[in-house]
C-alpha cells in the first residue's frame, strides 16, 4: 500500500515556478483589462449627479495652463473639486483657492451655490517625488512616500473626513469620477496610484468605472511629447494634444483637439 505523499512534498521548485507563472499571467491579464482600450464607455450621467474631480497642479507653468483649461468649469456638474499640490508649492495652492473664490463669485447667490465655496473643494498636499538636486539614491524612497500620499486624495476628499463639515456629500467621500493632469512629476505618481486602485478594484475603482483620467499635453509642446506625456500616453483614458503635429503620437493614442488653453 503506497502512502499518499505528505503535503510538504508539494513545496518543490517546480511548484513555486508554476505558481509564480500563474500569478504573473493573472497580473498581466488584469493589467491589460484595466488599460484604457478596454475600459467601458461611461454610462450616461444624469444632470445633477454629484461628481468629484481630482485636479493635479504643479509648478508655475503647469498650474497656469491648468487653470486656463478649467476656465469654464461648471461647479453644477463637478460638484466637488480636490486640488493636489506638491509640498512647498504655495503658489499653486494659492492659485487653486483664488480659482475657487472666482467660481464662487461667478455663481453668486444664484442656484448651485451649495457647490461652491469651502466644503465643496479641498486642497491636498503630497510630498515631492524628487526635490531639485536630490540624490538619485534616495529618489526611490521619496517616490514611494509620494505614491503612498497620492492614495489620500484619490480615496476621499479631505473635507469629507471631518464630521463637522455639513457640506460633505457621498461623492466627496467616494473615489473621484475624473482625474485631470497636465504633466507635473506628481501627476505620473498619482496616475500610477489610480492604476493600482483599478488593478485591485479597490472600492470598485474598476468595476464602477471610477478614476477616469484625462491628460492634456502642454500647449508649449508642438512636435514632441514631454517626459510625463511619454510615460502616461498609454495608460490614461484620454490623451489630448493641442498641436496637429502631435496627432496620433504615442502609438496613435494622442487626440488632437486644438488649442485648449
Amino acid at each position, binding site marked *: 500500500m503506497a502512502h499518499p505523499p505528505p503535503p510538504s512534498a508539494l513545496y518543490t521548485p517546480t511548484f513555486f515556478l508554476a505558481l509564480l507563472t500563474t500569478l504573473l499571467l493573472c497580473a498581466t491579464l488584469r493589467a491589460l483589462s484595466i488599460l484604457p482600450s478596454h475600459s467601458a464607455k461611461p454610462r450616461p450621467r444624469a444632470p445633477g449627479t454629484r461628481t468629484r474631480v481630482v485636479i493635479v497642479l504643479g509648478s508655475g507653468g503647469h498650474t497656469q495652463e491648468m487653470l486656463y483649461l478649467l476656465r469654464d468649469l461648471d461647479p453644477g456638474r463637478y460638484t466637488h473639486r480636490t486640488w493636489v499640490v506638491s509640498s512647498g508649492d504655495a503658489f499653486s495652492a494659492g492659485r487653486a483657492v483664488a480659482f475657487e473664490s472666482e467660481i464662487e463669485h461667478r455663481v453668486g447667490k444664484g442656484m448651485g451655490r451649495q457647490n461652491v465655496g469651502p466644503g465643496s473643494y479641498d486642497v491636498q498636499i503630497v510630498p515631492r517625488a524628487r526635490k531639485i538636486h536630490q540624490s538619485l539614491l534616495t529618489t526611490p524612497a521619496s517616490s514611494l512616500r509620494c505614491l503612498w500620499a497620492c492614495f489620500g486624495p484619490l480615496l476621499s476628499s479631505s473635507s469629507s473626513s471631518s464630521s463637522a463639515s455639513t457640506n460633505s456629500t457621498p461623492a466627496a467621500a467616494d473615489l473621484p469620477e*475624473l482625474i485631470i493632469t497636465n504633466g507635473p512629476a506628481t501627476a505620473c505618481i498619482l496616475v500610477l496610484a489610480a492604476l493600482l486602485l483599478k488593478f485591485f478594484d479597490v472600492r470598485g475603482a474598476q468595476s464602477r468605472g471610477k478614476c477616469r483620467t484625462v491628460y492634456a499635453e502642454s500647449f508649449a509642446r508642438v512636435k514632441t511629447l514631454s517626459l510625463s506625456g511619454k510615460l502616461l500616453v498609454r495608460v490614461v483614458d484620454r490623451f489630448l494634444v493641442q498641436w496637429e503635429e502631435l496627432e496620433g503620437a504615442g502609438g496613435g493614442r494622442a487626440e488632437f483637439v486644438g488649442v485648449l488653453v
Partner: protein
Amino acid sequence: MSKLCFVTTGATAPFTKLIEAVLSPSSLDAFLECGVTHIFIQYGTAKDVYHSTAEAARQYLKAISTEQELKIDGMDFDSSGLKEQFKLVQQTQGLAISHAGSGSILEALRYQVPLIVVPNTALLDNHQEELAVAMDRAGYVIHGNVDHLAPAIKVSEGFRTKMAQFPPVTAGKERKTKSFANIMDETVGFTDFNNE
C-alpha cells in the same frame, strides 16, 4: 496720443539679446514709424545691459533729432504678473514683444494685442522656436528674430486687424475645437445632456 510697446524678457534666464535688439537703431526707427511713444522693458536680471543699452538708444534718438517723443523705461520683475502692462498696451493700441515662454504668450493673448514672439535661441531648447513658429502659422502672433526685429515691428500695426481670435473658436482643418469642459463631460458621461 501715447502708444506703448511693452517688452518682456522672462523671469528665469536673462535675455540680453532681446533688449539689445529692441533698442537697436533699426528697431527705434521702426518704432518711430509706427508712432510708438513709449517703450517699457521688463528686463529681469539683465539690469546692467538694459541701462547701458537704453542710454545708447537715447543718444541715438538725440543724434537723429526726431521731433517725435519716444520714452524708454524699464523694470526688473513684477511679482503680481504682467496684466497691468498688457492692459495698457491694449488701451493705447500698442504692441507687445515677448520671449517665447508659454506663460507670457498666454497672458498677452488674453488682451488681443499684436504680439511679437522672439525665441531665446541661446537656451539650447528648441521648443521655444517650435512654439513661436506654430503660433505664427496659426495667425496668433508674429514670429520675431533678434537679428531682424525691425520688419516684425513694422508688420505689427497691420496685424492688429487680421490676428486670429485667441483662444480659438476653430482650429486645424476648419475643425471645430472642443472645449476642455466638453471633453471632461464626454469622459464622465455627461455628453447626452450637452444640448439642454
